[in-house]
């Protein structure tokens, strides 16, 4: 791989963390056949939850921080395994909390912003079109590539961290024009009424196209929340990192020679059935990916003056939580008996160690992950139906 003088200097740096980070990127670049590095403007660090990385990850991060690792571009942390302040209310053990806090401290030491969220683009980190970044959370990667038009591969924990430290990533995959073209056309005939319908579509398509790049036609309108739900589901059931919605994210393109799939009302209903193994959730969760302020407002309106008889958790970022507190949405939800939690989510917190066996979600992504990662029987349905399940 061709390296600039500055990049060569990093390989010989006095700082062992810089040296190691650059070495890692060069080797990964060699494996992927990259010809050079590309400078990035931001990074997203994954592998934050103690549940995900365990003691091996904690040890690595601590030693890396001790060696002098420090990020050189704005870098935001992915969700942790608990609400960093209200973890006791989540039945998180003291031991887990201590380990989680050690991970957070190590990351803070590297100057990573402890945003603990999968939606940095909602409040702080919005790249420009064609800007190169190194993001690691799969739904954020999909949103960055597809909706924003920035360029990132699906990074892993160590590779995103190495990119954050050096400010570079090997130029291959989705950083190159030639790899950013649609591979399948998806004709959407079903009526998409809410974010869970977009999640059902995403879940279905991800399984069909795996790591392909679907091009949707027939979606007449989709906002940030709908696209966030669609992309997240495709990145969970498949490995989609870039998609196109004709008339929404891109203008019309010639896709006449691509394989065509068709998503009808029948496929939509079938996907809900496939992702549902329980009709009686003990815990209902919203916020996978993390809720926007609009989603929280909707939930609070539906809960106003009602009483939740089971458990109901809303996951969001600390930033959006602050707005929710200020607008009174948090009070409405918590007076009804729910909780608004930040910093964590239903996939990376240790739900399998809690008292629950069945969960309700409006997220196509969560519905794909909860049975495996959290050992839960899932009910996949839209927000209104789920709320009706757990209120008096």
């Amino acid at each position, binding site marked *: 791989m061709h390296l600039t003088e500055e990049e060569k200097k990093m390989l010989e740096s006095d700082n062992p963390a810089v040296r*190691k980070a650059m*070495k*890692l990127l060069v*080797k*990964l670049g060699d*494996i992927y056949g990259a010809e050079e590095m590309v400078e990035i403007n931001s990074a997203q660090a994954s*592998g934050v939850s103690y549940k*995900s*990385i*365990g*003691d*091996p*990850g904690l*040890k*690595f991060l601590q*030693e890396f921080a001790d060696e002098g690792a420090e990020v050189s571009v704005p870098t935001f942390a992915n969700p942790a395994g608990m609400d960093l302040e209200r973890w006791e209310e989540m039945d998180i053990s003291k031991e887990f909390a201590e380990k989680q806090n050690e991970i957070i401290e190590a990351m803070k030491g590297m100057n990573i912003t402890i945003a603990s969220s999968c939606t940095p683009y909602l409040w702080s980190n919005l790249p420009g079109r064609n800007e190169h970044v190194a993001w690691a959370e799969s739904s954020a990667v999909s949103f960055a590539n597809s909706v924003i038009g920035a360029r990132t591969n699906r990074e*892993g*924990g*160590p*590779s995103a961290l190495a990119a954050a430290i050096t400010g570079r990533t090997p130029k291959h995959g989705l950083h190159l024009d030639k790899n950013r073209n649609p591979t399948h056309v998806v004709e959407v005939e079903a009526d998409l009424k809410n974010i869970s319908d977009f999640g059902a579509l995403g879940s279905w398509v991800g399984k069909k196209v795996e790591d392909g790049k679907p091009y949707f036609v027939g979606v007449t309108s989709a906002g940030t929340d709908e696209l966030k739900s669609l992309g997240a589901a495709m990145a969970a059931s498949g490995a989609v990192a870039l998609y196109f919605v004709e008339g929404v994210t891109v203008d019309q393109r010639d896709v006449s020679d691509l394989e065509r799939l068709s998503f009808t009302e029948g496929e939509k209903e079938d996907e809900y059935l496939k992702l549902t193994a329980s009709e009686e959730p003990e815990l209902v969760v919203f916020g996978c990916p993390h809720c926007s302020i609009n989603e929280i407002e909707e939930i609070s309106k539906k809960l106003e003056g009602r009483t939740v008889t089971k458990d109901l958790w809303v996951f969001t970022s600390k930033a959006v939580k602050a707005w929710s507190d200020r607008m009174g949405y948090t009070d409405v939800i918590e007076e009804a008996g729910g909780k608004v939690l930040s910093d964590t989510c239903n996939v990376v917190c240790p739900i399998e160690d809690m008292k629950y066996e069945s969960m309700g979600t409006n997220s196509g992504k969560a519905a794909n992950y909860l049975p495996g990662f959290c050992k839960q029987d899932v009910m996949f349905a839209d927000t209104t139906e789920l709320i009706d399940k757990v209120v008096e």
Partner: protein
Amino acid sequence: MKVKGRGVTEGEAEGEVLFSSEPIGFYGAVDIDTGKFIEEGHELEGENIAGKVLVFPRGKGSTVGSYVLYGLAKNGKAPAAIVNEETETIVATGCILGEIPCVDNLEVPLGELVDGKKAFVSADDGKIETKG
């Protein structure tokens, strides 16, 4: 026997060959403090990978596997070297972080490296030499 391959990382090491025809997902499969292979039903279950020339087709599973290889190295329980059919990013990352010599893309099938034989692995030159 001398075999050529591609050096994925750097360094040289010698050890006894421990061969697996199955891929390995290190997270959950290997005890980080002892190097013992603990995944139930895997053909290496019960073996210890510390100090061995570990030969397997490729890595799989959780990306935390990289941290496991690093942790094993820090505890002095890492394989002496790793030889793959094709090294993917999880194992490559772990070998770079843990400074474990790693070679892939051999000119012969992996099965030519026989269990229990001594092997010298040079990731610097991308070659393997077996003895006896």
